[in-house]
């Protein structure tokens, strides 16, 4: 199978993630959609690594996964803090940085 179909699949997953970030208002779902976009980037990286025949892209994908894990940990901590303070769990309502 040629490399370009992996890239098309990656583009499809990225578009689904971008649409989800735009449409949804629950921060949990927004985080999931961001995760989707990062994973589509990983798929493209691994496909290009295979195309070039070296493994740098795979290492890059691993590092992207680490960054995604950090982002999810901080994001979920924020959601728990928002829930504790009884603010609306809605990204449109949360406009102020001040608690």
């Amino acid at each position, binding site marked *: 199978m040629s490399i370009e179909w992996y890239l098309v699949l990656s583009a499809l997953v990225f578009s689904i993630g971008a649409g989800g970030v735009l449409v949804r208002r629950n921060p949990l779902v927004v985080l*999931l959609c961001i995760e989707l976009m990062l994973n589509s980037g990983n798929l493209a990286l691994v496909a290009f690594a295979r*195309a070039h025949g070296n493994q740098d892209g795979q290492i890059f994908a691993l590092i992207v996964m680490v960054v995604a894990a950090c982002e999810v940990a901080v994001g979920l901590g924020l959601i728990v803090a928002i829930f504790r303070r009884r603010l609306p769990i809605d990204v449109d309502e949360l406009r102020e940085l001040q608690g």
Partner: protein
Amino acid sequence: MVLYLFVVAYVGGADDPIRPAGSPGLRWLSGLFALVLFVELSIAVLGSGLSALSEEGAGWFEAYGTPAEIGRLLLTDFLLAFEIASILLLVAAVGAVVLARRRSGLEDPRELSVADLFRDREIKGTQTDAERGTMLEAGGEPRR
């Protein structure tokens, strides 16, 4: 993923149905944007003149992509990235704990922990005894 499940169980996504964006026009526009993005990326990938994209890729050696090879690369060529990633994970873990902890000193009687929900079956949602008999009863449940 497990972290997601815990937070969904804690925040309780069920009583608060996940609503789409406010105006239907914006929803359509967002969906259209995603579709246009996909079509555009597909055109860019499939219609490009790069002939290397429609091949199987370069040749690869026997140990390509094996865990042993990835580990060797992580500890030799990409050692700096590996160490920075470990520090980043540590900082993120500490930051998540600091963000999600209960503040001592700012004792809010309405604060609930997961243990409270398990202990008392009577608790509806997050409304506690401290809220009953106050103006909140007339005004309804607090908005989340």
